[in-house]
Each structure stands twice: as C-alpha cells, then as structure tokens.
C-alpha cells in the first residue's frame, strides 16, 4: 500500500503544524471583536461536546443546571465500566474494523473509477459519471428493506461484509478525486503519455503520490462517515459480538425500561466513540483543511 508511508508522513506534518501554530503569532491581529465572535461561536459549537465529556466524569450523570458542570471524579470508574463491564472496547474494535474496510474499499474502488473517468477515452463518459453521482440520491435508508433481503439472500447478515460492501461505491469520493485529478496539470499527464507510461505505473507512481493530500482528506471524511453509521448496523447486525460502537452505545444506557438512565456511562461511551475520528482529524488536519478545493468542472 503506497498510502501507508504517506499517512505516517502526514501524521508527522500535522503534529508539527500544530506545534508551529502556537509559536508564530504575527504582529497584526484581526480586531478583538473578531476573536470575541469566534470565541462565542466556537463555544456554542463545542459546548454540547464539552458537556458530554464532563458528564462522563460524573457519578450518575444527571446534571440539570450549569452549576453542575464541574468535572466529577468518576472518570476512571465510568470508562472502566464502559470498556470492561460493557465490553465497549469490543464494539469500538468492530467499528474500527468496519470503518477501515470501508475507507480502504472506498479509496481503492473510487481511485479506479475516477482514474477511468478522467484519464480514459470512454464513450458516454458523462453518462457513466452521472450514473455514479446519481447514487448520492440512493442512501441506505431508502433501500433498507430490499437491501436487508438481499443481505439475507447472500447470507451476509451479521457479517462484516454486510456493513461494509454496500458502502464501498462512493459518489462523493469519485467526485472529489475527479476534481483533484482534473487539477493535475495536463502537461504532466501528457509527459507520461509521451514516455509511454502504462496505466498501472501511472496510477501507482504518478497519480497516487500526487494525490496524497486528497486521499488523506477524503479518508478522514469517509472514516467519520463510516464510523458514524448507526441505522444499518442496527438493522442488519443482531449479534452482540459483531455490533458496532454506535449501536453499542445504547447498551450503556442501563435499564431504561426500569427507569435507570446512566447518562454518565452513555457519555463515557460517546466520548470514547468520538476519540478515533477526532484523533485522525487533529493529526491529519493539514490535508483535511487544505485539499478540498472544489473548482468548476
């Protein structure tokens, strides 16, 4: 996998960039008003998540006023309970497996498709592209019932195949990759053609290395998407051992039927599920924020 070293490299750069950010503060700042507005907005955006994290450190977790929002001392206990007693680690692991398979699958399949769409002379190319784009309108919920049946017919229920393969075709990824491929100077492509560089070599040694940023950026978006899948796993996976974290979260609620809603455990679980994507976003922040410039055509 040529992406792996690239990923590591980006990871390192992301961390470096964070470090640099703090040190370089130039003389002329924007007006304090701008910063104030930002503070307020950022606070508003982050507040709910912060509440979740705080609650996850409390004993019962029932918090009804702002005054209660001081971190409690049950963090270790709650996280231990979630991870060990409720086997939440297991769900996280399932989620991770699912997400990685989806991301890698999407990338491979979409790189192929985008390459065909951009670099091949194909008849009815626009139609093919449209056919792929059109799938944006067919998200899982609309197809639940037949898809469910199909999975049963294939014997895929309760397997990782059921929660990964249907996601592998990705209109968004193909679209973004196509945009990126179109921004690679034509002269570079033509140089390859003049040199007689074959498609495989072209893809491995020219296209992929020149798309590192976008691939990383798209991977993160797709990871978040995959990681957050909820409804479909809920429906198609009914064995606890194979369940994913999003669905597993409900198991942390405690005996709701019996009136015990353990908010602190739920929030501990929520915080746990937030960690992998968050970590990725921080580490790969540079490519995530730099590479999605959508240009016309």
């Amino acid at each position, binding site marked *: 996998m040529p992406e792996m070293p690239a990923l590591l490299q980006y990871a390192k750069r992301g961390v470096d960039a964070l470090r640099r950010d703090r040190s370089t503060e130039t003389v002329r700042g924007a007006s304090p008003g701008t910063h104030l507005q930002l503070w307020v907005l950022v606070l508003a955006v982050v507040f709910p998540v912060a509440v979740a994290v705080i609650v996850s450190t409390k004993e019962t977790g029932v918090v009804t006023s702002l005054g209660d929002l001081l971190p409690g001392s049950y963090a270790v206990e709650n996280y231990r309970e979630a991870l060990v007693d409720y086997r939440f680690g297991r769900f996280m692991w399932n989620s991770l497996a699912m997400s990685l398979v989806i991301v890698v699958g999407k990338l491979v399949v979409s790189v192929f498709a985008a390459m065909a769409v951009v670099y091949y002379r194909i008849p009815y190319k626009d139609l093919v592209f449209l056919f792929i784009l059109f799938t944006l309108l067919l998200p899982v919920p609309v197809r639940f*019932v037949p898809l469910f049946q199909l999975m049963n017919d294939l014997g895929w229920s309760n397997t990782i195949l059921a929660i990964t393969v249907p996601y592998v075709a990705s209109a968004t990824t193909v679209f973004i990759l196509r945009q990126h491929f179109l921004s690679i100077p034509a002269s570079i492509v033509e140089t390859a053609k003049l040199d007689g560089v074959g498609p495989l070599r072209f893809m491995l040694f020219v296209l992929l290395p020149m798309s590192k940023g976008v691939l990383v950026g798209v991977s993160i978006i797709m990871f978040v998407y995959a990681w957050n899948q909820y409804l479909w796993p809920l429906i198609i996976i009914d064995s606890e051992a194979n369940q994913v974290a999003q669905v597993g979260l409900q198991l942390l609620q405690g005996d709701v039927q019996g009136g015990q809603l353990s908010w602190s455990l739920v929030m501990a679980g929520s915080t746990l599920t937030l960690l992998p994507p968050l970590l990725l976003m921080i580490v790969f922040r540079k490519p995530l924020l730099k590479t999605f410039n959508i240009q016309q055509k």
Partner: protein
Amino acid sequence: MSTREIFDSRIESGLLLLPTLVVSVVFLYYPTAMAVRTSFFDSSFGQADEFVGLENYAALVTDSAYHSSVLLSVLFAAVVVAGVMAVSLYLTFLIHEVDTGQGVYLISVIWPYALPPAVGALVFLFIAHPTLGVLTGPIEALGVDVDWFNDGPQAFVVVALAAIWKQIGYNVIFMIAAMNNVPDTLTETARLDGVSGLRRLVSVYVPIMTPTLFFLVVINTIYAFFSTFAFVDLLTSGGPSNATNILIFDLYQEGFSFFNFGVASAKSVVLFLVVGALMLVQFRVTDEYSYYGA
C-alpha cells in the same frame, strides 16, 4: 487546451469502473428498483406479498398527514441547508480573518462533526430537555418557555438546530479550502477600497466560492433529507403533532416499526423523487448563477 485522456483501452477502463459499477448496481440500484417494485405490493414480515397496484401510492395521495410530512421535510431541508451554510460561512470567514490561532479555532469548530449523530442527539437532549436540560434554566430565564415536547414549532427548531450544529464542521472543512483559494490580491483590493468585512464576504468571497458552495448545497440537502434520522428518532420521534415527522423518519417508522413495507417503499420512492426534483432545481439554478472559476 490539452487533454488528460491519455489511455484508450476500453477493457482497462471497464475493469477500473467495474467495482464501482457492480457495487452501485447490486447494492444501490438493484435495491432501489426492488423498492420501487415493493411499492406496488402489500408486503410485511411473515406474510406473502400481495400485488396491490397503485394502492400504496393512492393511500399516500389521500393522506393529508403525509402531505404535511412532505412539505415539512422540504421546509426542514431548506432551514437546515440555509442554516448550516450561513453559520459555517460566517464561521469560516471569521477564522479566515484572524491570523492567530486559526488552527485551534478550526479544529474546535470541526470537532463536533466527528460526533455520531445519535450521540449528538443524546447530547442535545441532555442540554435542552424541557425540564432536565442544562441550558433549559438559562434559556427560560430569558423569557422563553422551553416546552418542545409539546410545542411543535419549538421541537422543529430544536431538531433543526441539532442537525445544523452537527453539519457545521463538514462545511467548514470545504469552505476554508475554498476561501483560502480566493486570491489575496482581491482581499487586499477590497481592504484598500474600505470594503467592510461582511460585504467582502457576501460580494467577493461567496461568488468566487460558488463551485464549492454548490457542492455543499447538494451534500447538505442530501444530509438534511437522509441523515437527520437520529435527531428526530432520539429527540422527538416525529412529534409533537407530527411537527418533526420528516420523510426519512416517517419512512423508517412505517417500515421498521410498523412493518408496512409496501407503503414504506412507496414512501421511499416519493422521498427519492422529492430529493431528485430538488437536486434538479438546484442544478438549474446554480448553472445560471454560479460563477465559473477562471
């Protein structure tokens, strides 16, 4: 000018497209077609399908609750799309304007995007529950009676807010790249001319960012219609008085709570048509107004 179509082999291009096309056909188009088929049947668990022709659709046509659900969904999508884009755009702009701490601000605002919708909904419930919510007290102190379990419009606002909040990060990711791509000299020209901040955003950046904004309108519309299920499910269950009974929730309930697959399928088809029609309108409109980057 020059061409990127440097390869000719039909077979190779076919092979490259194959995985995407096979997956699309088998797991996307085929189930969709089946959904269309099912919509002509009376179908449920544990009973044989029975062909009923257009009956399911006829039921929808006469069902006024369903009509309001369609309208509601369109309204909801409009509010969510407009809200997400306005807030994200303004946030992006502010971040673009400051030169200190950009990275920290950025990570902070895109952070909630990583949160699963279900968790987002739970957290929202937690802070905005009419009686238990952390923020309920302060908001009531402002003179608003927080009562969205009973008050439809309020419930709509809460679900929309949650949906907007969750999608901001995704938008900011794309918008910041687009805004950073606006040539500095345009910003500087505007500064020399004394074009004020907001005017610069609206009159200079936004038009230049149209390709990205258009992409986001499409993605956000799809999000608003299809991916907001968890918020409705966990916050309001479509109520009160159907005030938040958007199509995707309605469809899920019909299918997976009531197991009326025929009707649910008819509802999927309608949902699909509604979103498709909206997309078409959006493509038309943006085709006309979008600035085609130089």
